[in-house]
């Protein structure tokens, strides 16, 4: 009977899952069931690239146990590091490795659970698909300011950049622009999501965003022959890479520790790859 089959498959799945977890419990065990009898709040803030993974993880955990509340805010890597250091949040995400100063000042413990890249994007309607690093520097410095100089339409280039607390910006500035200047006429947006939306809505825009965030609302730009895909980040041909960190003040305990463990667990890492990043396991 129908019911019989369903019941049987549940039992079978249960057996398989238990078997799987028993076997994988050699690694830091982070199964969703560890959250079963927990209660409490987790406050997370910081890097905006991390948000989709945070949201998915929070969704799974909160659906499993309604006594756990996870709040997620953005703000950028700088915010995450500072807020976790000041004790305002439990987990501060950053898209760049915290500096030694920061680690020492706040007593941070770092957990890198994904690898990501930072790539340049333009609007899908833009015929310009590839740039050299020097062209990129000149565009962002404001020295090239019309698309026709690059073989595109005769329209001004609208540069979009991130605010100062952004880890994405830090990585882009250091590795793609070689610490070059970003024009002060650039429009400032506050997150990876906002950057994507801005460039997707502006046919003459150019910006930079986390590789994991890229989708077909924007076109990636090939830099010196390397296309910013996650595979290329993995195999090293696309060089502008960065880790996604979750930082805590001191050793994480209790619920927070379980959340971090969850990120490293198979389910967590699956969320990482699902959202377009590279898992670390």
């Amino acid at each position: 009977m129908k019911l019989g089959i369903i019941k049987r498959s549940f039992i079978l799945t249960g057996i398989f899952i238990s078997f799987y977890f028993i076997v994988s419990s050699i690694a830091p065990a982070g199964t969703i069931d560890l959250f079963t009898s927990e209660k409490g709040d987790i406050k997370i803030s910081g890097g905006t690239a991390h948000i989709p993974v945070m949201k998915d993880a929070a969704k799974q955990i909160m659906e499993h146990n309604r006594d756990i509340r996870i709040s997620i805010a953005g703000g950028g890597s700088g915010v995450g590091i500072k807020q976790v250091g000041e004790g305002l949040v439990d987990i501060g995400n950053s898209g760049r490795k915290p500096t030694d100063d920061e680690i020492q000042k706040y007593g941070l413990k770092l957990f890198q659970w994904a690898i990501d890249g930072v790539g340049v994007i333009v609007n899908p309607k833009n015929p310009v698909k590839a740039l050299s690093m020097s062209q990129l520097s000149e565009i962002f410095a404001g020295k090239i300011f019309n698309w026709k100089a690059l073989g595109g339409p005769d329209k001004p280039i609208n540069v979009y950049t991130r605010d100062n607390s952004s880890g994405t910006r830090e990585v882009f500035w250091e590795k793609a622009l070689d610490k070059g200047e970003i024009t002060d006429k650039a429009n400032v947006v506050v997150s990876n999501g906002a950057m994507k939306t801005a460039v997707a809505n502006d046919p003459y825009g150019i910006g930079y965003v986390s590789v994991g965030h890229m989708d077909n609302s924007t076109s990636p730009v090939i830099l010196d022959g390397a296309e910013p895909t996650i595979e290329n980040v993995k195999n090293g041909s696309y060089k502008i890479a960065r880790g996604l960190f979750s930082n805590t003040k001191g050793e994480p305990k209790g619920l927070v520790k379980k959340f971090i463990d969850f990120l490293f667990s198979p389910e967590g890492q699956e969320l990482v790859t699902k959202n377009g990043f590279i898992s670390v396991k």
Partner: protein
Amino acid sequence: MKERFIEIFIKSFAWLSGLLLLSVTFVIIGFLLVKGVPTLSLSLIFGDTSPADALLLRRQVLEGILPAMAGTGLLVLLAVGMATPVGLAAGIYLAEYSRGNLKSFFSLFYDILAGVPSIVIGLFGFSLAISLHHYVKEIYPCLLISALALAFLVLPYLIRTTQFALESIPAEVRLTAPALGATKLQNIAYVLFPRSLPGIASGVILAIGRCAEDTAVIMLTGVVAAAGIPGSLLSAYEALPFYIYYISSQYRNSYELQTGFGAAVILLIICACLFLTAFYLKNQLMNRMLYRR
């Protein structure tokens, strides 16, 4: 001849201005309604959780705007709850117990407070939270701090409305109770205050509207992008206007954009209802004044 020309010019200018403003308004609201009304549905609010489960707090709503609506609702309740007693008391004091220079002095401060930009009030709330955090570890920008800051925001409006409502009571009514031997306080409590209730109520409702729509204050004092229904006064929360702002700059797909429009329509409806109620109550006040029932 010149007079005639000026007359025609002014008339046409006035008509043009009026019509221009009206049409822009209709375009704005129309655009919103056209894009937003089709998205209104239970799944907009509750996501894929069933309404019963969500409302009974049995399960969290993760894809709908219920947490944002709940956050706004709680904010408004707390903020107006905190501001109303203080605002009413101060308004009564201003209308009944002070006069001349002192009154003018107080009034000036309230006007200044009313004129302070909302983001500066938010900044103030944020600074308060951070300062308090040094003494009480549990306090950081949260629902309570936001409600407090919003209370600061609407306090001047409440004071002024109460003051105005009390001051509009005609002299004959004011003198009746004291003539019968009542004390000043008894006069206020039994005659003046009940009489000015419609005006005060409309002020309270306008304050509710102001709290529901404000974004700048809450951005600095604890609203976040995702938090579920707030569990305690000290927890992070979501709010409708912030949701709309957030979605407008960071929607991930067209579905999320739709929810932004839907949320905007819902906020518009809430504000419209509040406004109509306040307006109706204010008219009641006018009627009472004119016809002295």
